[in-house]
């Protein structure tokens, strides 16, 4: 028997699709929510750290145009560029919703198209972040340069790592979809990945607002 473990899991999962739980919510979905709750604490800590050390850097580079010790420094942020990559990530949430909607109405082709689309949008966002990080590095901003560099790179870097993991999962789902692993009743698998993906997206909305848009006066 060359049956893979994953298939065995899938078969088992679809053999008992509706287990009665005291919460009224599928165990797998509850676990995903719990995981996302712990992720809230994780990113909450990093965002709080960023806010705590905002405006406390002893020396350049600064996020926005700053006069420090009588010298004028240009800020490293490029708000229009980051707005575009934030928009791209937002759009990937739309395509994720479309992927789930496709499998729920048993549209296998739509599932493949929208999964790949979501992954590609995610990768575009990551490419934008790689470009941004490189650009900041050229302007002298590193993990060690100042408090802004440390808190900024740790916060956005961990978010980027989450997007990367999400892209890997989406590509895995895409390959599985190509091999015809998903039926209409397996839609929960797509839904769970969707929950993770939307969470990562929402976190970016918070980060983008708090770090880039709301500037201290």
């Amino acid at each position: 028997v060359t049956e893979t473990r994953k298939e065995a899991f899938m078969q088992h999962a679809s053999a008992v699709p509706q287990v009665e739980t005291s919460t009224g919510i599928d165990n797998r979905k509850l676990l995903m929510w719990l995981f996302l709750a712990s992720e809230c604490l994780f990113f909450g800590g990093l965002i709080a750290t960023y806010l705590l050390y905002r405006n406390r850097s002893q020396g350049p580079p600064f996020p926005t145009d700053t006069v420090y010790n009588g010298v004028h420094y240009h800020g490293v942020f490029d708000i229009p560029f980051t707005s575009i990559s934030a928009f791209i990530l937002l759009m990937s949430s739309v395509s994720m919703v479309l992927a789930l909607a496709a499998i729920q109405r048993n549209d296998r082709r739509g599932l493949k198209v929208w999964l790949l689309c979501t992954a590609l949008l995610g990768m575009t966002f990551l490419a934008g972040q790689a470009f941004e990080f490189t650009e900041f590095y050229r302007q002298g901003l590193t993990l060690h340069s100042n408090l802004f560099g440390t808190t900024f790179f740790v916060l956005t870097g961990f978010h980027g790592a989450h997007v990367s993991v999400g892209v890997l999962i989406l590509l895995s789902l895409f390959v599985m979809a190509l091999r015809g692993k998903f039926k209409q009743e397996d839609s929960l698998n797509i839904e769970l990945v969707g929950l993770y993906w939307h969470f990562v997206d929402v976190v970016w909305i918070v980060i983008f607002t708090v770090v880039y848009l709301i500037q201290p006066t």
Partner: protein
Amino acid sequence: MFTTGLGSVANSAFGVSTILIAVPTGVKVFNWIATLHGGSIRLNTPLLFAVGFIAMFTVGGLTGVTHSIVPSDYQQQDTYYVVAHFHQVLVGGALFGLFAGIYYWFPKFSGKLLNEKLGQLHFWLMLIGFNVTFQPMMILGILGMPRRIATYPDGMGWGLWNMIATVGAFAIALSVLVFIVNVIHSLRSGEEAGADPWDARTLEWMIPSPPPAYNFAEIPQVRALDDFWHRKYVENERGEPVPAVAGGAYSAEEPHGDGHGIHLPSPSFMPLIAAFGLPIIGFGFIYDFALVAAGAAILLFGLYAWALEPAAE
């Protein structure tokens, strides 16, 4: 906390909250004592460690309450008094409890009882050694010995108490040695434990020791608090427990419902390989980013190989 210079308002708040910790902790201590009250107590090694835990943890908690008095804490800050306090809590609160658990559940996971005489020797050596080690540190702290020092000038008046603490530390080491001997001896030629050596109340004692890999062949139906006890004992007309005939107040024969077969994952090396990638990523962040890529590759290989591994059926 008080010496960080936050001001008197913050100090008062922290003082009050430090006192408040004592309330739930005190409730817990009375919980534990009340659990023992009225029971037919067998003073064997697990219980000795459990009682030792209550006593030592209480001492540790009481020395913690003294920290809530701000002027007194100014004196204790960063001295051996603090070291003594938190070791009293750590060792008394965690280590004694851990050993109680090990002595209690060792028969379940190994199938052999730990030797009772060696166990009691271990307990008394540890209790005495522990107090001889850490009580002198309380005095040292009040005498002003700072923590985190490797050495100190002669003539500070700390020599005697430090010597006593050193002797106590060796007693603790000796007690752990007794424990290790006990484990090796019992694993080799210990008394067979059987499924339920303590006449226990909880479900894990229903299955053989050591338990089969699947634990329960069928999920047991629980119909009472301390269900296993009620399978073994019924109450007579005076409310005393008497051994139940033929397997309990209700039939030990479980109704054979359509319980699912038990799915056990096949053994696999892949989680180990995936875990091996993680420290390499960690080292990579410190030394060289190329290592991050290598570690990530190992991690991903492990995860995907694990997921795609053929089932051993």
